[in-house]
């Protein structure tokens, strides 16, 4: 049987189709423009980068989009495709063709939404181009009704159409099965989806079916089983990004933030440009108190967001906050650089985006922790008091992100009662992401179950003010009073120890203070690395030991 003639499909109407070509290589855009015109297209748009492409998509509903996978730093075609689909900037039946210049497909399998309709490898000639277009347009026509039904949210109808189409056009069976399964998931019909995936896997072990099955198991809350399936995927393809994402999800549900971080870190190494992924990674790093990695993740999230059309203030706040929290509090050169950096990020935000409704609050909340980490507790407390007016009594009006920041700043100030109330209130909200929920639970869990009683709190605040103006001896007296009233308080013990250590560093070492600061530090005990007081505690211990080692003779 020799080659079949090319035109067995009905004439395609090129003239009425809108085509977009996205590529950073100008010469290629020229080539495409000429080639497409020669094929018969008349409505051709060209874009040099994803931002341009997105703007064009907002104005025109394209039928076909060609997009180079690799467009230079910070952006690739996969990311653009994801955003266009996620924000529904393109129709469901838009044909997206990924143009790759490499040997094998770098784009890895994902959910239906993230896969292009086709791939084409450079260099290609006009004949190949036309063939590719013809085939894909033909396919879209066959599947047209299904796409329409999905666009209108008529999932049951779409599934029915899938069954019919599979019979009429056996070449599309796989697509129909895949689509049906995904639609069942959207409808919450998990057993039906499971059934389809298992049927496919019985015939051949395919990674997309394993991924689909894993997703289904996650919905069914069978996390350990899902993990098994995902490990299998990684055996077939050890660089499957969606597998790592799903593993991270499983471990989120199993409340194992360290595993979550491990898998997300793997995923971002393979696919660094996703803003969401980097952001989630940042959040889980914070839960694990790995502020260095959190900074890195938030930096990447910010960088990637600059290439997208949706630059948000949140990216800036997160980064500035993480830089702040990564300060050790020892007034070192590194710390001062961080202060400047945090301020710089917030300034940059003002220039580039609309800072949003709660911007002053968010900036001030970061400001509180900046003061604390610069050993300026009085200013921190004052700033918080200014914020306090009306803020905490009306949490309903505040966003989830702001509330998390608020609780964290309160905790850093030692105001555990208020922080706890906010966190408890927060956990009742239903708009928390999984990582936010786990983070809030972790913060809540870290509570040294005591509260700063009224008088002790007052004394603490007064003492802080004295400390701030270098009146160490008086502040030490008041801190001691406070500790007498609330001897178990970690915060108070650390404050007292700090005041004494500071005095001994700047004035003179006394055996009395040495003994007393040792007592404070001992009473705090061996703090766990996950405690929010850990950095401060270990820093103080270091400074205390340095004092004894310096051989300053006690009086």
């Amino acid at each position: 049987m020799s080659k079949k003639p090319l035109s067995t499909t009905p004439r395609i109407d090129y003239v009425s189709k809108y085509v977009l070509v996205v590529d950073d290589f100008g010469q290629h855009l020229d080539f495409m423009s000429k080639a497409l015109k020669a094929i018969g297209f008349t409505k051709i748009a060209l874009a040099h980068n994803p931002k341009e492409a997105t703007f064009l998509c907002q104005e025109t509903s394209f039928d076909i989009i060609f997009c180079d996978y690799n467009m230079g730093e910070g952006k690739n075609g996969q990311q653009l495709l994801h955003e266009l689909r996620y924000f529904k900037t393109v129709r469901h039946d838009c044909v997206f063709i990924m143009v790759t210049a490499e040997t094998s497909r770098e784009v890895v399998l994902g959910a239906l939404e993230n896969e292009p309709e086709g791939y084409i490898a450079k260099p290609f000639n006009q004949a190949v181009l036309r063939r590719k277009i013809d085939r894909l347009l033909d396919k879209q026509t066959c599947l047209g009704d299904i796409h329409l039904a999905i666009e209108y949210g008529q999932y049951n109808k779409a599934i029915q159409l899938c069954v019919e189409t599979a019979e009429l056009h056996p070449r599309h069976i796989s697509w129909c099965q895949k689509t049906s399964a995904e639609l069942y998931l959207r409808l919450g019909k998990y057993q039906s989806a499971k059934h389809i995936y298992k049927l496919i896997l019985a015939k051949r072990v395919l990674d997309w079916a394993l991924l689909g099955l894993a997703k289904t198991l996650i919905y069914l809350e069978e996390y350990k089983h899902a993990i098994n399936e995902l490990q299998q995927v990684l055996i077939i393809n050890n660089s499957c990004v969606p597998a790592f994402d799903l593993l991270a999800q499983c471990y989120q549900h199993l409340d194992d933030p360290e595993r979550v971080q491990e898998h997300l870190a793997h995923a971002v190494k393979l696919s660094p440009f996703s803003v969401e992924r980097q952001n989630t990674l940042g959040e889980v790093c914070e839960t694990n108190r790995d502020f260095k990695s959190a900074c890195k993740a938030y930096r990447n999230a910010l960088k990637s967001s600059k290439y997208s059309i949706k630059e948000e203030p949140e990216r800036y706040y997160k980064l500035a906050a993480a830089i702040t929290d990564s300060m050790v509090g020892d007034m070192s050169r590194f710390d001062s650089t961080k202060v400047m950096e945090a301020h710089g990020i917030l300034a940059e935000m003002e220039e580039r985006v609309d800072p949003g409704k709660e911007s002053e609050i968010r900036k001030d909340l970061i400001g509180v922790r900046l003061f604390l980490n610069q050993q300026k507790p009085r200013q921190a407390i004052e700033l918080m008091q200014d914020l306090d007016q009306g803020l905490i009594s009306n949490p309903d009006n505040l966003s989830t992100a702001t509330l998390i920041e608020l609780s964290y700043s309160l905790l850093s100030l030692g105001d555990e009662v208020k922080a706890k109330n906010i966190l408890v209130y927060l956990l009742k909200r239903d708009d928390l992401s999984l990582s936010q929920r786990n983070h809030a639970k972790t913060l809540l869990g870290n509570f040294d179950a005591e509260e700063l009683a009224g008088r002790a709190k007052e004394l603490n605040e007064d003492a802080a003010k004295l400390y701030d103006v270098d009146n160490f001896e008086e502040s030490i007296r008041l801190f001691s009073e406070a500790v007498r009233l609330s001897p178990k308080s970690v915060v108070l013990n650390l404050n007292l120890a700090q005041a004494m250590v500071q005095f001994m560093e700047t004035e003179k070492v006394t055996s009395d203070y040495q003994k007393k600061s040792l007592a404070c530090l001992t009473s705090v005990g061996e703090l766990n690395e996950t405690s929010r007081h850990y950095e401060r505690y270990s820093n103080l211990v270091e400074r205390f030991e340095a004092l004894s080692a310096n051989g300053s003779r006690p009086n």
Partner: protein
Amino acid sequence: MSKQPLDFALAFGSAVHDVKNSVGLLLSTLDDFMKANPPVTAEDKSRAVVLNYEASRINNDMMQLLSIYRLENERLFIAVEEVQVAEFLEDEMLAHDTLLRMKGLEVEIECDEDLSWYFDSMLIKNVLNNVIVNTIRYTKDRLKIAVESVDGYVRISIEDNGRGFPDELCQDPGGYLTRINFNTGSTGLGLYFSARVAELHRNDGRAGYIEVDNNSTIGGGAFRINIP
């Protein structure tokens, strides 16, 4: 300013990206040029063939090199999908259209229209590209692609009616270091690449493999890739 070690993979990938853009431009410009100035003399025709052929080889070589680098560093992902084989082969031949016409070769494809199989279309395409370009050079005037199901494998054979392959190649097609022949410019790298790609395709405990022999149905040599 701190000196960061060069991420070779990144550099390599970028270089390949660049080369591909250039080669693409080269080939399309050549096409345009030939349409505007169709070669008349036999010499011009053969020059056009050389230009096209060599540009394609640069492309193939670069891609292979990158793939092999990735293979060695375990960064090569294999993305298996369901492929309509007949369509796939037709598209593949279309890519060599210009060269085929210039050399006046007769092409046959023997494949069940309804056959679909599971493999990484990009990688297999690269393998076939390489073989086809070589076959075009060495065949007399015919090229045949035959597809058959054999023992749970799908076998794609590319046959020619040229002089055939040397024996030692047929013994061990995938080994290459033993065979670098600077006279003919043959490194055996292409076959090594093909063997590794075939191997990466696994199903049900079985791996793919290649074969090279002179049992071509049209009288020359044959390259075969078997995918489980």
